[in-house]
C-alpha cells in the first residue's frame, strides 16, 4: 500500500451502490465513485437531492453495504464492519437525540457503549459540553431545548467518542437562516479545534463554499468535480457544476482557435475574446456553451466600449446590491450583478438601453 493512501482519512475505491437486483432494473445510487479525503479536512459532498451524497455517507457509516468497491478508513478496510465497530460518528439530519435521556446522558452514551471508565466519561462529557457551549443545559431533557440547542447536542454526542471521521448529514437544514449562519462558523471552528476530519453533506451551495476545504459536486450517483471552493466556483468543469453553484450566465458561442487551455471564442451575440477551456476539451464541438458569472459583467456608458448591448428587462434588489436582467441582441438573457458601492452610479430602469462589458478572463467554455 502506498504511503499516500495510508494517510488518507477516507479512501473510496470504485464504489457503487445499486438498490434492487441489478443495474438494469434497480436504482443506481452511486456509480463507480472514487474519492480520497485527507486527514483533518473539512470535506463537503454537494449536490441536489437524490444525487447519492447521503448514500455515500451511509456507506462510510456502515448503515449500507456497497454493491461493488471498497472503502478504507486510514488504510483499513471497512468491509463487513457493522456501524458499531467503525470509529466514525454521524450527526443526523433530524438529530435523532434519545428522548428518554438528558443532554449529558445523550452525550455520554457513545462513551458508555465503548466501556470507558466513568471518570473519563464525565470529564469528556464536561469538555464536549464546553466545546458546544451547552454546560448550563446538561441536565435538561432533549425535548426541553430549542432546535439550535438540539443541534449542538447532536454534534457534541457525535464528537464525544472522538471519532476518526465525523459525518454530518445536512445537519443545518432544519435551522433558520441566522442560526444556520452561526452554526456554519461554529462547525468550522469545531473542525479546526478538534482536528477531526469532517465529511459534510449538503445541497446548499453557499454553505459548501463558505465552510469547506474541498468540495465534491455530485449528480446522479457520479462525482462531477472535486476541488477547493475557489476552483469549483471559478473553474467549474461541467455545465451542471457551473449552474448549480452560484448564479451564472450561459451563452452560446463558437471556438475560433485553441491553444492549450485557452481558446479564442466568438459569442453568438458578437463579442470575441479569450476563454479558458475545461480539462477535457477534445469532446467539444465547434458550437459551445460559454459561462460568465454575473459579477464579472458591468455597465459602461460609452457604446464603443461595449461588448454586449441590450435592453434591461428586470431589476431585483437583494440588500447589498442589484441584479439586472438584460435581453441582448440574440434574444438570450444576461444577468448582471452590481454591488451598491460599485462605481456605476447611474440609476438604471426597466426598458433602458444598456451597454455591457466583460471582465478579463471572465469567459469559461463548459462541457455538458
Amino acid at each position: 500500500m502506498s504511503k499516500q493512501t495510508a494517510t488518507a482519512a477516507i479512501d473510496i475505491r470504485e464504489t457503487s451502490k445499486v438498490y434492487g437486483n441489478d443495474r438494469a432494473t434497480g436504482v443506481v445510487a452511486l456509480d463507480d465513485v472514487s474519492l480520497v479525503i485527507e486527514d483533518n479536512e473539512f470535506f463537503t459532498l454537494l449536490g441536489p437531492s437524490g444525487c447519492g451524497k447521503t448514500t455515500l455517507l451511509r456507506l462510510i457509516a456502515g448503515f449500507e453495504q456497497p454493491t461493488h468497491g471498497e472503502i478504507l478508513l486510514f488504510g483499513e478496510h471497512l468491509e463487513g464492519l457493522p456501524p458499531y465497530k467503525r470509529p466514525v460518528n454521524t450527526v443526523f439530519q433530524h438529530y435523532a437525540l434519545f428522548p428518554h435521556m438528558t443532554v449529558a446522558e445523550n452525550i455520554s452514551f457513545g462513551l458508555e457503549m465503548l466501556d470507558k471508565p466513568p471518570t473519563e466519561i464525565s470529564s469528556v462529557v464536561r469538555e464536549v459540553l464546553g466545546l458546544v457551549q451547552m454546560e448550563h443545559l446538561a441536565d435538561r431533557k432533549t425535548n426541553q431545548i430549542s432546535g439550535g440547542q438540539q443541534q449542538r447536542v447532536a454534534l457534541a454526542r457525535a464528537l464525544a467518542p472522538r471519532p476518526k471521521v465525523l459525518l454530518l448529514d445536512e445537519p443545518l437544514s432544519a435551522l433558520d437562516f441566522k442560526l444556520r449562519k452561526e452554526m456554519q462558523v461554529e462547525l468550522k471552528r469545531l473542525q479546526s479545534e478538534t482536528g477531526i476530519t469532517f465529511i459534510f453533506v449538503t445541497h446548499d451551495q453557499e454553505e459548501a463554499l463558505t465552510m469547506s476545504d474541498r468540495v465534491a459536486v455530485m449528480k446522479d450517483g457520479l462525482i462531477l468535480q472535486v476541488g477547493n471552493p475557489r476552483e469549483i466556483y471559478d473553474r467549474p468543469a461541467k455545465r451542471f457544476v457551473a449552474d448549480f453553484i452560484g448564479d451564472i450566465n450561459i451563452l452560446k458561442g463558437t471556438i475560433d482557435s485553441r491553444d492549450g487551455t485557452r481558446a479564442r471564442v466568438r459569442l453568438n451575440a458578437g463579442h470575441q475574446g479569450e476563454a479558458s477551456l475545461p480539462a477535457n476539451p477534445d469532446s467539444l464541438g465547434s458550437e459551445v456553451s460559454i459561462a460568465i458569472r454575473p459579477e464579472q459583467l458591468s455597465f459602461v456608458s460609452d457604446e464603443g466600449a461595449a461588448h454586449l448591448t441590450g435592453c434591461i428587462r428586470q431589476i431585483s434588489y437583494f440588500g447589498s446590491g442589484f441584479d439586472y436582467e438584460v435581453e441582448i441582441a440574440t434574444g438570450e438573457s444576461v444577468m448582471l450583478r452590481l454591488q451598491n458601492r460599485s462605481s456605476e452610479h447611474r440609476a438604471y430602469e426597466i426598458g433602458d438601453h444598456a451597454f455591457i462589458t466583460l471582465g478579463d478572463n471572465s469567459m469559461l467554455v463548459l462541457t455538458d
Partner: protein
Amino acid sequence: MPDQSTNHSQLSASVIAEEKRLRNTRIALLSPGILTIFCIGIMPLSIVLVYSFLEPGDFGGVSWNLSFDAYVQLLFEEDIFDETLAFTTDYLEIFFRSASLALFTTIACLLVGFPTAYFIATQPPARRNAWLFLITIPFWTNLLIRTYAMLLILRDQGVINLSLIEIGLIDSAIPMLYTDFAVCLGLVYAYLPFMVLPIFASLEKLDFRLVEASYDLYATRFRVLKRIIIPIAKPGIAAGCILVLIPSLGAFITPALLGGGKSLMLGNLIELQFGQARNWPFGSAIALVLMLLVMLSLMTYLRYGAKKGVPAHG
C-alpha cells in the same frame, strides 16, 4: 364613573349567569358517563363491600347481621369443637399460588409478546394491520371454547402427544393436562393480546432512526434493545403487564378446566364461595382483599416508576 360601575356589575352578573349555564350543560353532557361509572363501578363494589361485613345466609345470600367473620376466616380457622381460633395458612397459600401463577403468566406473556409486538411494529404499515388482525382473531371466540380447545391439544391423546409418539420421539404420552404448566399456558394464550397491543402501540411510535443513531454510537444489538428500545417502550410494557397480571390473578375458567381442580386458585375459591359453599360474605371478602393487594402493588409501582421512569413523550 357611576355609569361605569353599573355597567361593571351588569357585566359580572351576566358572566355569572353564563358560567352557571355552562356548568349545567357540562353536568348534563357528563351525566351518561357519571351514571355508567356509578352503576357498573361504584354500586356493585359497594354491594360487595357491604356483603363482606354480613353473615352468610343458610341457603345462599346473606343475613343482615354485622360480622367480621369473613375477614377473620382468611387467616384463622375455627375449631369445630371448642370454637377457639387457630392461625391457618390455607388461604395464604392459595393467595401465594395464584400470585406466583399470575406472575409467571405475565413474564411468559412479556417474553412472547414483546418480540411479537416488535415484529409487527417493524413490518410495513400495510402488513401491520393484517398481523394485528391475526392476533385479535381468537378473541372472537368464547374463552370457554378456546380453553376446551387447549384441553384437546394438551391431553394425553391430544395433538402434541400423538404427533410426538407418531414421529417416535417419545414412547408414552407426557402428562401435560391438569398441571400448573397447562394452566399457565392457557392463561398466556388467553391474555397474550393484552400484552401485545399496548407494547405494539408504544413501539409503533418509536423512531427507528434512534436505533440507527445508537448503532452509530457503538451500541451492539443487545445494548440498543436494553438502552433505547425497552426504555422507550416502557409505558407500553407496564400497561401490558398490568392488563395481563390482574385478570390472571382472578381467572377461574382456565385453572378449573386445565388445572383439573387439583390446585385451588383465587378465582376458583371466590367462585366456590358464591356457588357450592354458599358463603357470600367470605367470597366478597376475598375479592376485596385481592383488589386491595393489586391496588397497593400498583401504587407502589407507580410511585417508584414515576421517580425513576420515563416521562411519556410524543
